[in-house]
């Protein structure tokens, strides 16, 4: 059999808020030793309904199978997947850098401006910068700040919304 092409897929899973439901969902992935690249859970516009945004890298055949196996779970309301061209995505990243470089080094200001990043907090010791965007955008800022010394860095998984209106 020919090897199928692997791609990034984003799944949107909807469930009621029940203890243990996340385990039921993740066991469908762990059963076949498929790594979840990112996972975000939040309440939707419908109270009591939670949306799980899951990113995985796999084949179309497997994503179809997994999606059905998740949707089959009694407490899951709906499970769907999409490729990147069909969704709008966003991520957020936080960077903690020493405040000294903000004070001493004029170039950090240019970097922050150029990347359209926000400063969230200035402390005597450190400054927290926020940047939203695609992964390559938050990564670009990371790469530019790195020479000045990044004390701490965190990036959310992408959250996504379908392009088609309904």
């Amino acid at each position, binding site marked *: *059999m020919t090897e199928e092409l692997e791609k990034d897929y984003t799944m*949107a899973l*909807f*469930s*009621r808020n029940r*203890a*243990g439901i996340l*385990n*039921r969902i993740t*066991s469908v992935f762990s*059963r076949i030793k498929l790594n979840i690249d990112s996972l975000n859970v939040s309440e939707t516009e*419908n109270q*009591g*309904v939670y949306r799980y945004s899951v990113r995985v890298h796999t084949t179309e055949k497997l994503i*179809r*199978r997994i999606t*059905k*196996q998740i*949707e*089959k779970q*009694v*407490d*899951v*309301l*709906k*499970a*769907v*997947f*999409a*490729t990147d061209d*069909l*969704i709008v995505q966003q991520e957020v990243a936080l960077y903690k850098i020493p405040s000294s470089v903000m004070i001493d080094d004029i170039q950090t200001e240019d970097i922050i401006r150029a990347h359209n990043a926000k400063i969230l907090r200035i402390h005597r010791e450190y400054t927290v910068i926020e940047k939203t965007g695609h992964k390559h955008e938050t990564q670009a800022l990371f790469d530019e700040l790195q020479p000045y010394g990044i004390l701490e860095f965190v990036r959310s998984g992408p959250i996504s*919304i*379908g392009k*088609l*209106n*309904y």
Partner: protein
Amino acid sequence: MFRAENSTLKQIINNNWQQIDDEIVAEKSIKLLGAEAIIKCLIAEDVEIMFGYPGGAIMPTYDIIHQYQQQIKHILVRHEQGAAHAAQGYARASGKVGVCIATSGPGATNLITGIADAQIDSTPLVCITGQVHKDLLGTDAFQETDIIDISMPITKWNYKITEASEIPKVLARAFYIAKSGRPGPVLIDITKNAQIEFLDFTYKKCKQVNSYLAEPTPRLQAIKEAAAIINTAQKPLVVFGQGVILGKAEAEFKSFLEKSGIPAAATIMGISAIDNQHPNYVGMLGMHGNYAPNLLTNECDVLIAIGMRFDDRVTGTLDTYAKNAKVIHLEIDDSEVNKNVPVDVAVIGNVKHTLPQITKRINSNQHPDWFAKFAALGKQEFDTVIKHDLNPSKDEISMPEVINLVNELTDSQAIIVTDVGQHQMAACRYAQFKQSRSLITSGGLGTMGFCIPAAMGAKLGRPDRTVVGIVGDGGVQMNIQELGTIMQSEIDVKIIILNNEFLGMVRQWQELYFDKRYASTVMSNPNYQKLAEAYDIASVKVSQREQLKTALQSMFAHQGAYLLEVMVGQENNIFPMISPGTSVSDMRLK
């Protein structure tokens, strides 16, 4: 791509979203102890019998079981695995939900193999486990184990009850989920405090769960397409599974076959859905199934799969499976469609409803030339295998001749319960059935130790029928402790040990694929007659062919449980066989 599903989601949400929480509208509630509420729920669900074993965290509920023993029977097993398999046997013989009950910790974990078996073979079970007091959860308390997480991948649904007030609603839902749609096991873990607190009790059966669609509505278009394809087929083949039995669709299935004139072959789980003597029935599929249906799967031009899931033991390698055929799949569980075999038309729904829709759209037909091919290959199998299996030239008794005598002496009316291994394949190949729900075997999980407890459950589910357990000398020693249950509860099961002093199926593979290196497959067995005597169960051992029929006759004439040990040929193989990784059309006759 998110659009379609979001609109469906809206529908689901708008569709009485509040209903779930408002399901129980207290009319005339009564104050009850949680433990008593549990038993009241079981009675309300028409549970007549449950299988279980007491222990610390479930003791308050056992106290109530004792009080209600006139209304609901409790069978004390000897190991919780026995309770789970007994509940399975009960469910599969009777068509009702099987109930088992155990304590926390080891009691709960001992159920696991039975639950996994029920999950893969779609058997409706409600398993109730005690749990430590809710304040002790997560503290590694005595006999605390996280059975919810442990059982998650092998249950259709599970839930931990920590408040008495949850009991009626959750148990109502448990029964509904276990038996509706594609059935399966549900585990409800109930903390000790929930059993000893009071609640305002009122019970209402659950009729829907809005995040769960039990039976999808069939698409008319798919039905029409399926009928159109069937009408043009020259060499169609039906492969059917347990879906026919679970959907209680035996009559609809028979009508479909008789109108369409299509040959039909069963998976191991589908056997007994139709009389084996029916002219359309062409035998069993799979690794040790019949020659003709396996070979001709790769020749058929339309393959109609009915309530089956294309298990790898049925398909052999998928690379060559049914490549000449358009595939129509009638299935209640959408996640089974396109899982292993790509299909041309999927008819999603309960086959009880979809089959008549198709039947009325197809032409009455016959396929005499096609049937002749089955007959020709069937003759080859008969001449090479079956003839010798049933009339061995050697002195040693063969497994098939024992099964054949069971057919004769029970008029093929018995429920046959098997264990796992060579004897299982012999039983599935040679047992004859005239009514549905007559073969109870561990198909998907292949659980050794299944036979004795499942046979007990089957007999209690259908006391009117003869129940024959067919078991090997290996499998009988897993869960042999249940002979104690048979003794105490006086369960009239006839157990036949087909003893070849080997773990026969593994030995067969060692002979064929591991150069006869019999690694850990030689068995030294106990004296089964002494063992049976210790349990006050009648037992006889037979090693000569001339004693066999009389021994079986005495067994069937005996009132009460009976253990018949038959010494069979030690190194006999089960043929035909599809070697692992090969095609159904490469099935070997010897």
